[in-house]
């Protein structure tokens, strides 16, 4: 196991280097003078020179990338061009809000998606199966920002059950509900579909038949014999949906004015705050890579048969 983790982590290094390279190329290799662009319409000549020297824009691209990498390695992602905040510090400040939202939406996804998938598999080809699968298809097809707007409109604006916007510090825990549902719907739908197909696969296996044949209680057969084995592919999907979650949080946080990394990123995009955009992109990609690594390791622990 130890060698596997080491092996897998070492494999991550070239990919992470590639991630920094792509981010660098996207935000630094753009033609035009980045120093001038960052400083806006009427920059002061000395400030331009200062920034240019500080960031090394006058040096060759390879040297610039090396400088960027060295700075990124110690967590220096620059400062916001809007209000001069330190990028990494600001991102870390916002991280708890996003993490909280990610956890509650995953809980929502699991709490609804797993039972729905199991139920659909058990009651295969009944109206329950069809309607839940149709609902999950809708859940996958709806753009997250539209879902967020619909929820805000119906449950916050019309019914007034929840606050339209705001964070838990002022609006209380009710403010957590709509953003979590909006963000959790897509992973929930994916989870339900996968649980269903995985359960159907497992329920055909001999050991399930055997368990039934020896007169086991049906609930025990389903949960202990079938679901325990159907869970592994579902677990992979769970980590996979984190991608949807990360980006989805951008839109959800923006619509519900939830003070996380997503809101930070969207505001940076709207104000063309390049260092901040770059910082959030890099941060999201790193989190994504690390979560995938942890998921692979977790998968290995769950199912020692797999060789990855």
């Amino acid at each position: 196991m130890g060698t596997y983790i080491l092996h897998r982590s070492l494999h991550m290094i070239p990919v992470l280097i590639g991630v920094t390279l792509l981010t660098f190329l996207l935000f630094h290799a753009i033609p035009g003078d980045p120093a001038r662009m960052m400083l806006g319409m009427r920059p002061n000549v000395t400030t331009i020179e200062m920034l240019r020297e500080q960031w090394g824009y006058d040096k060759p691209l390879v040297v610039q990338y090396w400088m960027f990498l060295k700075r990124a390695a110690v967590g220096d992602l620059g400062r916001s061009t809007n209000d001069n905040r330190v990028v990494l510090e600001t991102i870390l400040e916002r991280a708890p809000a996003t993490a909280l939202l990610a956890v509650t939406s995953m809980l929502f996804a699991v709490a609804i998606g797993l039972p729905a998938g199991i139920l659909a598999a058990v009651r295969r080809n009944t109206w329950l199966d069809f309607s839940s699968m149709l609902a999950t298809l809708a859940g996958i097809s709806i753009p997250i920002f539209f879902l967020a707007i619909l929820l805000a409109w119906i449950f916050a604006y019309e019914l007034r059950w929840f606050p339209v916007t705001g964070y838990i510090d002022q609006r209380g825990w009710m403010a957590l509900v709509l953003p979590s549902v909006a963000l959790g719907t897509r992973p929930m739908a994916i989870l339900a579909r996968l649980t269903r197909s995985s359960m159907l696969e497992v329920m055909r296996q001999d050991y399930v038949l055997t368990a039934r044949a020896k007169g086991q209680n049906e609930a025990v057969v389903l949960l202990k014999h079938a679901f325990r084995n159907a869970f592994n592919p579902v677990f992979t999907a769970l980590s996979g949906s984190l991608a949807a979650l990360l980006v989805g949080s951008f839109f959800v946080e923006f619509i519900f004015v939830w003070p996380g990394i997503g809101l930070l990123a969207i505001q940076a995009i709207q104000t063309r705050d390049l260092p901040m955009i770059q910082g959030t992109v890099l941060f999201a990609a790193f989190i994504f890579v690390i979560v995938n690594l942890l998921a692979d390791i977790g998968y290995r622990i769950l199912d020692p048969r797999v060789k990855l």
Partner: protein
Amino acid sequence: MAVFLKQKMALTGLILTSLLVGLAAAAPWLTPYRFDGNLPLPAEMDGTYEDINALERSLLPPSADNWLGTDKFGRDVFTRVLYGGRISLFVGFISQGIALLIGVPLGCLAGYFRGKTDAVVMWLINVFWSFPYLLLVLAMDIALSHMIRSPIVRVFLAVGLVSWVLVARIVRGQVLSIKENAYIEAARAFGFSSARVMIRHLAPNLITPVFVVVTLGFAEAVIAEAALSYLGLGVQPPIPSWGRMINDGYGYILAGTGWWVAVFPGIAIMVAVLGLNLLGDGLRDYLDPHLKDELEGTR
């Protein structure tokens, strides 16, 4: 029963997708209004035409004249949803075209030559794969904004330059498995060049999986375009785009002056994406059941 149902789903997808294409293509004949104004087209004027004050026609609820209501500028929402569909379709077609142009050759090279070529291509795929899809599209669009003036061309490129990864992955996997077949071995034994073997013998086998991937990629592209224009990065007004209409309309929902401006374009996106997903999934199950494993968990 299950097979029949799957085909029914693919058929539903096909119908929804054709409906979308048909409505978008026939937009000028389906509505008497212009997408950028509330005036009837010249052909519709019969002399009794009077200048209608745009303010009076602002934010009208759905009615017989304006099936889906009007927006703040008195423009017909139905008309704008139809024309917005054209933008979504353009973005889908062109971005997936770009994805094919990059993804198919790279996937073929990686799967055919293996070794160092494969290592480099796989590295590229893994790097692109490390970014959440929509986030990379956003970053691409911003990065391109200093090079390319036209917002719509930028959307084409941003989506295409990210979507090639899925195409390349599938093509590589397919090539790897097809390569082992005897007829490829035979073609090579005849001394045919690698290019000839790839184009004449490998490529025909790739059509089915690539078609499925592109259909699913098309759905992602429709969402990506809407998301970009929702954030104000996509096509610019007065050209209608579903994402931007939702953004514009949200203010009227919160002000209580009109839900229809945002809700109908949202439903349009949902139906379009649902249709494409159904079609892609259905085709996959129908044409090539093995693909399921390869595509699983990729989205």
